[in-house]
């Protein structure tokens, strides 16, 4: 699976903001932390605001804060704001009828893979992902 950049940036932003829903962060704060383009992240944040996962706080000291439900929102909920996750079997047509069965079989296999991918991403909530990240941070800190 190759996730689009926008999906990845959205996950960075949502997880960062959801880790402390009281805190407000600017696009630059988040972009600097993950070494990504502020300009691209700002566009991603606009989509997150429209989806109501994130709120833009205007004025001095403004920024973004998380407004979703941390134990209900899954990674898939965030990713699907930016892409469908359906594998694109770029089979050029038209083809001879004899080739149809092979193409159908390959399409069936990609659907199987897509189903597994969705089953993983749709059952990991932001809370679970953050708990996992915190546990990793603790282990890393212990050396």
């Amino acid at each position, binding site marked *: 699976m190759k996730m689009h950049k926008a999906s990845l940036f959205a996950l960075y932003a949502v997880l960062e903001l959801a880790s402390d829903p009281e805190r407000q962060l600017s696009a630059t704060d988040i972009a600097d932390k993950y070494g990504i383009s502020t300009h691209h992240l700002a566009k991603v944040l606009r989509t997150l605001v429209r989806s109501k996962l994130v709120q833009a706080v205007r004025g001095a000291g403004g920024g973004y804060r998380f407004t979703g439900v941390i134990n209900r929102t899954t990674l898939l909920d965030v990713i699907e704001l930016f892409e469908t996750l359906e594998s694109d079997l770029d089979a050029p047509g038209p083809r001879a009828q004899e080739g149809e069965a092979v193409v159908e079989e390959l399409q069936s296999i990609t659907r199987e893979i897509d189903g597994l991918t969705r089953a993983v991403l749709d059952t990991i*909530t932001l809370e679970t992902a953050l708990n996992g990240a915190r546990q990793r941070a603790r282990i890393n800190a212990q050396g």
Partner: protein
Amino acid sequence: MTDQVTIRNARQSDFDAVIVLDLVGDPADKPAYWNSIFDRYVTAARAGRIFLVAEQSGEVIGFIVGEVRAWEFGSEPCGWVFALSVSPRSREMGVGQLMLTEMCRRLKKAGVATVRTMVDRENKLTLSFFRSQGLRSGRYVELEKPLDDF
């Protein structure tokens, strides 16, 4: 909330409560299924077979069943959790976590280092719960096939 919840071994007298808590499958099939489970995991309990219930104020509000399984397709002995349910009105209070933690403690005591389970991929509630407890896709892949052609 969970400080009022007790996790204990299932007893034969829990039979009716477990059937009510089991929200999966055809209700008509439940008594026969649970009779066989109680026979093997409660009445004839052996080391490595674990059937626990969560009790609050004398009421059974959840159950979990697991066992040690070994050498299926070369697998080292591991713990298998094959049934888990919490009463809908007692959910999101940590009851499932208490039961799974106790199950894992007992499985480890029984000598295994890994716990496994299998959940319908459409069962988002249970899958999310196991994920939240740190379970991930393992090295064994479940495969299936309809037997219409046989």
